[in-house]
């Protein structure tokens, strides 16, 4: 405990003593944390919306015009027995036409010229979230597609998969960039800590000569990096919050519409904590690396 107390007191003093160089180190960590934080903020919000969409997936089985009521019954039985459906609804040809006229009022007049109702009857199925995630819905869709009386089955999960793959690629590239910046930040911290180490050469030499434990010699430098990391992370989170608030104020409505009504949210406490801990670890690693010359 005394070693920790000593390390923190001396790190705090050194932190303020070497103002300009400390500011550089804090800035480097803040930049790295900003990149990672922005990435987390974007991917977390997109993930959240995608999860919402995944949980609300539906598919439609379009029936042939000549499908018999037995064939429709077989389709509905298969859906009910699969355990995939949360809810299903039969939409007749007439209901489909009415729905089109309601939803696309501007185009409604076009349908006046139709001799026959071109809209097929369908069964709309709301998929249970677990069935969508485990792939049971995909299996059911494949089996329904080949049943008699079925013209087509539309299950629009492919674009979700494509989007998820794209998001993964962005996430990987972003993490690689953040990792690179974190390394650069650690190197900056190490350089700053090493400057402090040179300024305290006499003190360190005496500490060694009196038999000071290594934790007392290296501790203040590690703690200094830790403080720099912590402050950098707080600055990054503050800026991230300001940026987030500005985006929400200016484009919140547009984004909400784009995200299917979901409001964008700031990072949860867990991720904020993780970001702070990560930045502090980067700082401490820089301090630890620099202080190896001291002991």
């Amino acid at each position, binding site marked *: 405990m005394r070693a920790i107390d*000593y390390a923190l007191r001396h790190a705090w003093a050194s932190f303020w003593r070497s103002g300009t160089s400390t500011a550089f180190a804090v800035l480097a960590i803040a930049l790295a944390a900003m990149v990672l934080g922005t990435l987390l903020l974007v991917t977390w919000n997109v993930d959240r919306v995608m999860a919402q969409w995944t949980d609300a997936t539906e598919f439609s089985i379009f029936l042939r015009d000549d499908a018999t009521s037995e064939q429709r019954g077989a389709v509905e039985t298969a859906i009910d027995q699969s355990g995939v459906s949360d809810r299903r609804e039969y939409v007749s040809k007439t209901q489909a036409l009415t729905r089109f006229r309601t939803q696309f009022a501007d185009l409604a007049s076009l349908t006046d010229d139709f001799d026959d109702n071109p809209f097929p009857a369908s069964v709309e199925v709301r998929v249970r979230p677990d069935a969508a995630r485990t792939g049971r819905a995909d299996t059911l869709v494949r089996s329904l597609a080949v049943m008699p009386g079925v013209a087509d089955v539309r299950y629009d999960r492919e674009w979700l998969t494509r989007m998820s793959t794209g998001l993964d690629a962005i996430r990987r590239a972003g993490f690689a960039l953040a990792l690179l910046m974190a390394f650069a930040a650690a190197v900056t911290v190490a350089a700053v800590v090493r400057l402090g180490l040179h300024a305290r050469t006499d003190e360190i*030499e*005496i500490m060694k*000569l*009196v*038999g*000071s434990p*290594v934790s007392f010699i290296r501790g203040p430098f590690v703690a200094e990096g830790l403080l720099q990391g912590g402050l950098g992370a707080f600055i990054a989170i503050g800026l991230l919050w300001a940026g987030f608030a500005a985006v929400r104020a200016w484009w919140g409505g547009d984004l909400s519409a784009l995200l299917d009504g979901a409001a964008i949210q700031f990072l949860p406490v867990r991720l904020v904590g993780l970001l702070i801990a990560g930045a502090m670890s980067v700082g401490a690693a820089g301090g630890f690396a620099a202080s190896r010359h001291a002991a």
Partner: protein
Amino acid sequence: MIETHHLSKLYSRGLYALQDLSLTVEKGEFVFLTGPSGAGKSTLLRLLLAQDRPTEGELFVNGHDLTSLSRGDIQEYRRGIGFIFQDFKLIPTRTVFENVAFVLEVLGVAPGQQRRRAFQVLKWVGLQHRINAYPRDLSGGEQQRIAIARALVNDPALVLADEPTGNLDPDLSLEIMNLLREVNAGGTTVVVATHDRELIRLVGRRTITLESGRVVEVT
């Protein structure tokens, strides 16, 4: 307290700083190491402080085999040793009191005990009235007395002094030597490296004379 057997220290250019040195310093003894510059006095003190390792031979101090100490063991060993240098080695950014208490602080001693003990040794060297001064505000003699206070604050069994009076005038040198004699009177082993023959004569203790890394005379 100190035992060396055929101790040698060879530097990279093939020069022996110490060669085949065998000597014993008893517990509670006051010993001078003397000789011309380059005789090996400082090298022997560096080996005794475990700042360097011998090339050959054996070196035992207070039961520690200094030829085989790990880094952690070296730190533990040094806690039982006080050191005094010619250039004082005080921390310029710390006050007199902090320079002394600092040793106890980095050894993990409780704050209250640090204050008591630091004040006690500063009083003993006669500088209790200068506790808030910085080293730059002190004379050479005062700075060396602070260095002595620092060397004694953790109550060491052995005090090593490398030319402790090298920067001081004869009166102050004698004053410092008297302080070291008092330390020795309390049972602490004291080894002083100096080339000041007059001072050795005035103090009158056992003297080991080195020349070219070898013991040439013991009086």
